[in-house]
Structures are given as C-alpha cells and as structure tokens.
C-alpha cells in the first residue's frame, strides 16, 4: 500500500530505538498461521480413523463429543484452573467448563458428508496439536503406516499404467517366466551397501549408505536409499538410527537372466528427495533433488551393479553411488562401484517398517 502524499512515514524501529510491542492482528495471524487444505484433510482423515480404532477397541461407538474433549483437554483444563480461583462467583454444580474455541458441533460439521468446509486455520491448530501428540505417543503408527503404504501402491499402479512395460513384443514373449522368477529371487527384498561420497571428511557418525529394494510387482519396484548409522543411539541400540535420502521406483522395461546366478533389469530409476535436504544437512555429497534416470542394474546373490547413463542430472546424483561429484561430465556411461548385498536382520526389517512413513507434499 502506498502512503498518501501528505502522510507521515513511520520511523523504522532502528531509528526510534523503541520496540513496538503488540499482539498479532488477524491479518498477521493469517500470514503466519496457514495450513493447506490437503494437510487439513489428511489430518481429519487420521483423526476419523483414530476414532474408529477407539470404537473397535472399546467395542462401542465413539462420538465427536469424546474426540472434541480429547482434542481440547489442555484448554478445558486451563479454563477449569482459572475458574477454580473464582468459585464464589460460579455455579460449582455445573459440568466442567469447556473452551468455546472448538465445539462438538464444529466436528459434526467438518465430518458431515453433505458439507465440504474445513476447519479455519485457528481452529485447526488444536487438531494439528492433537494429531502430533498421538503420533509421538505411537498411537497412530498403524493408521499412518497403512495410509502411506496405500499411497505408495497407488503410485506404483500409476507408474505401471503410465510406462506400461509389456511382457509381449507382438506375438513374442519378451519377459520370460524364468527371468521373472530370477527377478523375484534376487531383486525382491534386496538390501545393498552403497559406497557413497561424503561431504567433507566423511559421515557425521559411523554410517553406511543402503539401497533397499522392496517387492518386484507389475515390473515396478519401490526403492529407498538411506544413511544408516552402524550403532543405534545410546539406550536405543535396537532402533535403526537412519536418515532418509532418496525414495522412488525402479521401473523395468526389460529383464534378462544371465545364466542362473544373475539377472539384469533395464529401465528407469525414478528418485525423489522428500526431505529436500542439501549435502550440508544429510552429509552425502549429492546435489541432486531427484529425477528419472535411465539405468540398468544387475542383481546376484552377492550384490548388485548399477550402470547409469551420463547426463547433467547424473553429475549431481553420482556421489550417492560412489562416483566423484561431477563425474557425469564423462561421455561414457557410469559404472559405480559394485554394491554389496547385506543380510536382512531385525534392524533392517525395523528400518523398512519405519520407511513406510513418507514425506507428503501439501501444495
């Protein structure tokens, strides 16, 4: 907004030396407090599933009043404490005080199938707080794991439909059953150690980089690349201490069994860095934010070898697979060091369970 000709401009605080102390205006609150609609819908879905889970466990329906009281417990308790000091002025026979910030009717409206409105940003704060509280207590792990795995399967199906790898070329069978059987044997559930290039002097704490492959299905295989610390944190040795690096899919265009002991997959490696971290944040000297890379991977009982086409993006991704930063300048394809197969133990299995939880974009 432009100031009028004759209007006096406010002096900057640095000149007056006075700090302006006042509460945030409604406009400022809207600027600071913003939740995307997709974020609100996701949290409401989690809360609804939590309500259903409570009902299942308790063997009786759980209403929105119960959920409202759980969400608003801190505000109700605060109100009760404040009114506790004014007992002579209130009717102590009445029910416990309830904050008016969020009501049972609000919940009924948000979950009404005939209505589409969402909680305002100010009201949604209370739901966000409650869901985060449930999350840190582990109460919604199963619910969120199921939602995130379902999303992963949805993306896998979409990729299958989009790329349409086909077992037949005309009337000729391209993907033979024997090839598929070997892919199932050497690819599904594979876990491989990757010789990543680290930023600076090395990993922040003794760590390895792992390339985790899930089940081979519809010629699309979910993959994850993570940094796993060799020893868990003090007192949490059994828990995997890891940093998620990349997540994505290996989309197979063709498979070829190389004898009985090896199988090669040609296709695309689609990776994304959900965290958005830079090398300074996670310690891997890769500047790649993700992308689609033409690749071939040869799997065997001992390990896997990945071959990556050259390209500008690859010059950034190379360090993940042990290629010096900028190695993509080379004209020929890159053959990073072989990846060693790692035995799946309880820590790897716990890691895979944790990797079900995903970063979700909201915009």
């Amino acid at each position: 907004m432009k100031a009028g000709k004759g209007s006096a401009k406010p002096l900057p605080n640095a000149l007056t030396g006075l700090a302006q102390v006042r509460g945030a205006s409604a406009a400022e609150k809207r600027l600071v407090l913003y939740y995307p609609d997709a974020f609100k819908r996701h949290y409401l879905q989690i809360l609804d599933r939590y309500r259903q889970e409570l009902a299942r466990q308790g063997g009786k329906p759980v209403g929105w009043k119960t959920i409202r009281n759980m969400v608003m417990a801190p505000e109700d308790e605060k109100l009760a404490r404040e009114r506790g000091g004014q007992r002579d002025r209130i009717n102590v026979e009445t029910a416990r005080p309830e904050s008016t910030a969020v009501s049972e009717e609000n919940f009924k409206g948000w979950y009404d199938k005939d209505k589409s409105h969402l909680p305002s940003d100010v009201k949604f704060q209370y739901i966000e707080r409650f869901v985060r509280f449930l999350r840190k207590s582990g109460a919604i792990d199963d619910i969120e794991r199921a939602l995130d795995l379902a999303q992963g399967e949805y993306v896998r199906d979409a990729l299958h439909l989009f790329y349409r790898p086909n077992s037949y070329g005309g009337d000729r069978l391209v993907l033979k059953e024997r090839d598929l059987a070997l892919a199932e044997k050497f690819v599904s559930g594979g876990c491989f150690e990757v010789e990543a290039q680290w930023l600076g002097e090395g990993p922040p704490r003794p760590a390895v980089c792992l390339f985790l492959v899930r089940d081979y299905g519809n010629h699309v295989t979910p993959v994850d690349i993570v940094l796993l610390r060799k020893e868990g944190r003090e007192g949490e040795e059994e828990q995997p201490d890891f940093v998620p690096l990349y997540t994505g899919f290996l989309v197979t265009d063709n498979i070829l069994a190389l004898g009985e002991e090896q199988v090669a997959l040609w296709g695309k490696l689609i990776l994304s860095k959900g965290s958005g971290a830079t090398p300074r944040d996670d310690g891997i000297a890769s500047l790649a934010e993700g992308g689609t890379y033409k690749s071939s991977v040869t799997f065997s009982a001992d390990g896997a070898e990945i071959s990556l086409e050259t390209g500008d993006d690859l010059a950034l991704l190379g360090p993940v697979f042990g290629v010096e930063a900028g190695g993509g300048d080379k004209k020929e394809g890159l053959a990073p060091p072989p990846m060693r197969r790692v035995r799946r133990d309880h820590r790897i299995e716990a890691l895979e369970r944790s990797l079900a939880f995903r970063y979700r974009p909201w915009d």
Partner: protein
Amino acid sequence: MGLSKAEIERKLKQMIGNPLFDAARMDDVGLMQGALDRGRSLNEQGPGSGFTPLHTAALNGSLRFLEEALKIKHVDPWIRDNKGMLAIDHAEVRRDRAAMNLLFDAMYPNGQVRFSE
C-alpha cells in the same frame, strides 16, 4: 544447461563451513556453543533447502544438539523450510520419538497453541 564439475565442487565447498549446520548434523554441542558465541543464529535458514539447524538436527536425530538448542530463548521451532516442513516433520518421518518429544514441547509451551481465539 547443467552444472560443470568445477561448479558442483564450488557449490559443495560453499556448503561446508557453516558451523551451526555442521554441529546439528554431527550432534556437536561444543561446536554449536562456539558458533552461537560468535553471533550465529539458530533461526538462520540455509540456501537451497531452507533448513534451520533445528531441521538438520531433526533429520539426523541429533538429540543432544536439539536438547541444548531448544533451551535458547530466541529459537523458533515454527520456521518452515523451502518444502513447507517444520523441524518436527523430519523427526516424525523417522518416528524419532525422543526428538519428537523435544520439539513438541518447544512448539506447545505448557501444552498451549500459538494463537488462541
């Protein structure tokens, strides 16, 4: 046009040297204290990711760093990175309960939300 090898190396070198982010990644409280004494801020956001040192610590599960950093008065756990995520979001994806507890308590002092009606 893509980046040349020299440009990539230059960018990587630029990223080394901000002691608060290194401290957050390595869970080094001494390094953090030294950087704070030299006037660095825990609310500083890095180029590219928009992470604050709290984001980096949450991503790496650096508990000692988080514990000490969250005691400092000016630190803001509500800063969003360039993907719109809070530090606690990174701890939640990893289901790092200890880091989640520390950040939750800092975000909701006495259990209260930021803006009440």
